């Protein structure tokens, strides 16, 4: 395994007929997944390749488009960090799956089960007896200088007896055809959810071929893991949650996806608090105990008191709860120490010592330069080494270029020796591995591209299980370094193909064990975001309605100084709606705020709703740049209102009517009530300019109703009656207060004694106070008072449920 990955993978340049499939050639000296050593198609690939060979290019493109459409509609994205901050990227699928023979996979699986067991024993020793160090197998410096060695966890035994529950391994095939382990991921491995989405997308493209091939399904793997986590709960009331660093994390989509797929809560550190050494979830129904936490957060951020003191996303007291043994964290805090690249140098020896057998799958040859003889070996062979940081947790081709090929580092053997001598403890040398290639569809034909596999292992009630599949990371060009998705690599589905029909299983339980789960308690933070999402959406709608009426009138008169227009401009200014542009900046910010709130609760949202909201924002931004005042703007507002109604409709039609929905609704009602109250206060007074009442009706979408109900010209009293006091008009203030009161009564009472809460009382008081009013009695002062009281009600909601 000693070929430089950069130089030996070349494109075949000569044209090879019209057939994109048969023109595929493996590269000399490199293993290929599709072709064997003699250039023959491996049997498991035959059916796929035959089928592809019969497809026209147009059909192939149509199939790929189906997969792409699925990913887009499902909203699959990952976050990419570049020089200019971060951005969401579509999931980069490589449409041609990688096919692996089921028999061969059994061997790979056996090797990875052994490895997972080995990892468990190593981490138990590092945080327990330290036999490996004492016996001179594992150098102490490797542990003591390791940032993932978390001293507060030393001696803390996991509540359920195991440190590791879910791991992944990066494996690659070398030129000799054997598989090698390139990296172990034990901290908080990502990608299992992406593997699922990749599978769904790929089967959209090749549903027929997938159905005809005996491809192992993925669902049972997740089902077994979910059952295992459920078994760790100490009491049936304990919650299980996925702990995420939040929406800014590169794989947040996956955290939300996995939580939704397995039916767990999705929580952030601030959703949790530790009381009497127990981890509790802050919910709108009070604190609820948490039994199992599947963390996607790096361990050092989990507790700012005892771990990284700079963490703002952790839970103070988490380590205390672990010491008390009241919660299971998957994987245990501190298990990231196993990812250390330098540890790969010691796994063969450790395996013999701890398991009494050799590694079934070898690790990539690694030498830690903290040891004299090993350092010398790396220096002597630097031409075929990748040299990189010893404590890095990423494989050499995915560490943002921190690792360099010995030959690419300028200098002589002497200067490399000096480098290794001065920083030896912090460096490892790894033998360069030339990874196998697999077909990728590039420019109308199949071309060989380097690939590595990410494979997942889960501890289940029957021991370690390996996901039959995973995803393959495919390089974008000739360089192994470009396998990383951040560097333009793509991801392909992996099909493990059996020679006989496979078991089909979904996550649905068998019919007879049917039970209806009550929805879990809503975390306070999610409630907060839902409430504000409702408010921002409604705020945007209110502004849009006013702006549309304004521009319709401006289109007729073209005179912004006309009394009514000037008056409304003043009003808009009073609610911070700056009119410098026809589609104003504050409106855009409003929609962005709605998106921000929604982004914090993506696990509670249908992808359709999310797409609708983003589409609204995109359109609003485009209009902001281009639209002119007057007719153009009025039309633009109508378009935006329609899109907004589309989002609201999706939410209304599809969101489950439980606590979360109530908070969203209360937010909308409250904002709508505020909007109408302010407007009435400003525009329905005796000194309001001509046309103000008609405009009010228009903004309140009540022109027709008014005509039908009152049969007279618009007058102050009829407009007040309809927009303030009519209990049946869905735009009236009274209507909003009635809805708020009804919804508030349905909310959980966290510390309730059966009596009315302060919030119940206030909602009732506000509603009944307005219900007894007559149109004659309404005036600016009363509206102003009402506005203040509604704001207070909002504060009270926050204090009661979001604090």
């Amino acid at each position: 395994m000693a070929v430089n990955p950069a130089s030996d993978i070349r494109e075949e340049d000569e044209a090879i007929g019209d057939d994109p499939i048969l023109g595929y050639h493996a590269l000399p000296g490199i293993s290929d997944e599709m072709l064997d050593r003699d250039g023959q198609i491996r049997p498991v690939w035959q059916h796929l390749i035959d089928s592809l060979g019969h497809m026209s290019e147009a059909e192939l493109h149509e199939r790929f488009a189906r997969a792409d459409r699925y990913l887009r509609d499902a909203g699959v994205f990952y976050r990419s960090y570049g020089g200019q901050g971060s951005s969401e990227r579509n999931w980069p699928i490589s449409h041609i799956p990688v096919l692996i023979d089921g028999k061969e996979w059994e061997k790979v699986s056996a090797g990875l089960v052994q490895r997972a067991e080995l990892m468990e024993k190593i981490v138990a020793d590092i945080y327990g007896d330290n036999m490996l160090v004492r016996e001179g197998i594992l150098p102490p410096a490797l542990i003591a200088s390791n940032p993932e060695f978390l001293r507060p966890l030393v001696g803390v035994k996991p509540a359920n007896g195991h440190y590791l529950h879910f791991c992944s391994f990066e494996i690659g095939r070398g030129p000799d055809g054997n598989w090698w382990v390139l990296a172990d991921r034990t901290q908080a491995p990502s990608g299992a959810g992406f593997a699922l989405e990749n599978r769904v997308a790929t089967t959209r493209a090749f549903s027929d071929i997938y159905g005809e091939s005996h491809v192992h399904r993925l669902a049972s793997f997740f089902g077994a893991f979910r059952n295992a986590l459920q078994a760790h709960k100490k009491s049936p009331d304990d919650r299980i949650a996925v702990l995420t660093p939040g929406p800014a994390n590169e794989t947040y989509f996956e955290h939300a996806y996995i939580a939704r797929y397995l039916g767990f809560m999705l929580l952030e550190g601030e959703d949790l608090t530790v009381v009497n050494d127990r981890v509790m979830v802050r919910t709108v129904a009070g604190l609820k105990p948490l039994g199992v936490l599947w963390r996607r957060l790096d361990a050092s951020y989990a507790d700012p008191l005892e771990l990284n003191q700079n963490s703002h996303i952790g839970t103070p007291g988490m380590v205390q709860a672990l010491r008390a043994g009241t919660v299971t964290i998957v994987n245990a805090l501190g298990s990231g120490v196993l990812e250390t690249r330098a540890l790969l140098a010691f796994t063969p020896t450790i395996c013999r010592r701890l398991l009494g057998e050799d590694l079934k799958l070898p690790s990539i040859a690694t030498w830690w330069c903290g040891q004299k003889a090993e350092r010398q070996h790396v220096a002597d062979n630097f031409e075929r080494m990748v040299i990189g940081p010893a404590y890095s947790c990423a494989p050499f081709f995915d560490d943002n270029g921190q690792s360099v090929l010995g030959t690419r580092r300028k200098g002589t053997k002497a200067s490399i020796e000096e480098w290794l001598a001065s920083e030896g403890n912090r460096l490892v040398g790894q033998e360069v591995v030339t990874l196998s290639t697999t077909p990728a569809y590039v420019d109308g034909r199949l071309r060989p591209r380097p690939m590595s596999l990410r494979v997942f292992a889960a501890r289940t009630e029957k021991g370690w299980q390996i996901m039959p599949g995973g995803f393959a990371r495919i390089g974008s060009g000739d360089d192994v370094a470009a396998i990383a998705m951040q560097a333009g690599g793509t991801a392909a589905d992996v099909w493990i193909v059996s020679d006989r029909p496979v078991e089909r299983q979904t996550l649905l339980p068998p019919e007879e064990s049917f039970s209806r789960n009550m929805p879990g308690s809503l975390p306070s933070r999610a409630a907060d975001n839902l409430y504000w999402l409702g408010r921002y959406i409604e705020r945007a709608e209110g502004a849009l309605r006013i702006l549309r009426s304004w521009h319709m009138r401006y289109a007729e008169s073209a005179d912004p100084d006309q009394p009514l227009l000037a008056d409304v401009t003043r009003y808009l200014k009073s609610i911070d709606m700056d009119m410098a542009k026809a589609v104003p900046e504050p409106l855009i910010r409003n929609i962005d705020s709605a998106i921000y709130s929604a982004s914090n609760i993506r696990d509670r949202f249908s992808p359709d709703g999310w797409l609708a909201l983003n589409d609204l924002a995109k359109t609003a931004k485009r209009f902001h740049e281009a639209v002119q005042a007057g007719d153009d703007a009025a039309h633009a507002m109508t378009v935006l209102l329609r899109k907004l109604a589309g989002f609201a409709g999706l939410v209304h039609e599809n969101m489950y009517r439980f606590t979360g929905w109530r908070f969203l609704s209360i937010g909308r009602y409250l904002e709508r009530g505020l909007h109408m109250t302010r407007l009435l206060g400003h525009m329905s007074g005796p000194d309001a300019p001509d046309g103000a009442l008609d405009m009010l009706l228009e903004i309140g979408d009540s022109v027709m109703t008014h005509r039908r109900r009152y049969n007279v010209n618009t007058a102050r009293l009829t407009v007040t009656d309809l927009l303030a006091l009519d209990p049946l008009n869905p735009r009236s203030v009274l209507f909003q207060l009635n809805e708020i009161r009804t919804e508030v009564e349905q909310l959980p009472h966290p510390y309730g004694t059966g009596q009315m809460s302060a919030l119940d009382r206030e909602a009732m008081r506000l509603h009944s106070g307005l219900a007894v009013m007559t149109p004659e009695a309404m005036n600016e002062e009363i509206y102003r008072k009402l506005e203040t009281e509604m704001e207070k009600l909002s504060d009270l909601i926050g204090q009661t449920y979001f604090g």
Partner: protein
Amino acid sequence: MLYDLSLHMGYVYDVPASGARHLLRVMPLSLTDRQRLIAGSLSVSPTADESGTFTDFFGQQTTSILFRGPHEALDIRMQARVQVDSTPLTADLSPELPKLGQELADLWSIDPDSPHHLAGPSPRLPNNPDIAAYARECARPGRTVREIAIALCARIHKEFKYDPEATTVDTSPREAFQLKRGVCQDFSHVMITALRSLGIPAGYVSGFLRTIPPPGKERLEGADAMHAWVRVWCGKAAGYIELDPTNNIPASSDHIVVGYGRDYSDVAPVIGVLKSYGSHRTVQAVDVIPVKG
């Protein structure tokens, strides 16, 4: 020496904290043949809603306290009686610097007292090339590890000015090194960074200093608050020595040890996470009074 020791730390919050969790590390240690905690008590006001103690990785007694409700201030008071025996420096058994690395590598242990924990960078003390260059100037060939440590201690004491206004608890060793000013924490952090850059394991010691000097002696710097100094591993035979760069002396019976760690973050007397905005004011008072026995 027998001491009666008292510590008061007070926090007043501009805006009441709506909840808080703290870890306190203020109780002196008991150390075989060196220091004995005869009696000690710790109290906090207001009364904590939850509290408990545990021993942390480096062996320090740690108290955790939790306040669920709003509070405007926090008072922490510790009192202790401690017997401290003098530990004068004995003959220098430390090797010359080039031999230290092998002695360290031959020590197959990551027990809490293992120098391996003190060899690499730690949360507050990353590698620093300027401090490393400064350290190399003290590491003349032929000097033993202990001689190098003592030379560094003397040099920092001589070239740095004791100035409580120049730095804060969050000042990095890089900044303190540029300023050549600071307090015991800064002096110690710079010295530890320097020693580690030479391959000499070094750690942070938090503790107290005798407040009133014996008759005829000068009052030591840092006696009016909690103090800090440096622990240096001088090889297998010599073990650890403790040097106080703020006063350029070896730790003596005037030094009372509270905790050992890699840097300040391991032994900070109070680490807290509180829900509050706005700032707070603090006071700290220390008395270390010899008991006539």
